[in-house]
């Protein structure tokens, strides 16, 4: 059982790390601010989600598990809001110098 859970952790964390990698590639390859932010915010939030899923078997209590899932939800909430706000200033001011 423990081996299976550890395997789950490894698979999910590797998948999460891959999404962080993908986000960076998007950042380096996409042409302008808005598309870059789009790529990065999606990839990073998915990456963190997978890392959280992977770490769930490693925590020692249900409360700790709920806490790390809660952390992910908080990041989603504030990340989405901030991205939306920043995009709005970008639209107002243009890509800028």
């Amino acid at each position: 059982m423990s081996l299976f859970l550890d395997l789950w952790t490894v698979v999910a964390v590797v998948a999460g790390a891959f999404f962080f990698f993908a986000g960076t590639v998007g950042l380096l390859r996409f042409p302008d601010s808005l598309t870059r932010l789009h790529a990065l915010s999606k990839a990073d939030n998915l990456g963190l989600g997978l890392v959280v899923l992977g770490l769930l078997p490693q925590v020692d209590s249900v409360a700790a598990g709920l806490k790390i899932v809660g952390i992910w939800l908080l990041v989603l909430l504030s990340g989405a809001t901030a991205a939306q706000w920043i995009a709005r200033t970008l639209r107002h001011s243009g890509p800028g110098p």
Partner: protein
Amino acid sequence: MAEFLVGAAAFILAMVALGLLRILRGPGDADRIMAAQLLGTGGIAAVLLLGAATGEAATVDVALTLALLAAFAAFAFVKAKLAQTPGESRTADGP
């Protein structure tokens, strides 16, 4: 297991840092603030991984604090920007 988790944390940090190098160059302030906020996501992932590797339960609270405050700089940035260009912030207020 601990070695693997620390390695994953190092990998994620390296990836995010690579992106950071690109984005700190700009072009605009908005990109940079967004980058700082998004690096927060990678940082939270790294904190959680390190916490799981050391088995120190309190690290989760560090990640929780980071998650709660992650977007504050971005909010403050937009607020300050809108205060500078009052015309734009009022467009949707209506009479």
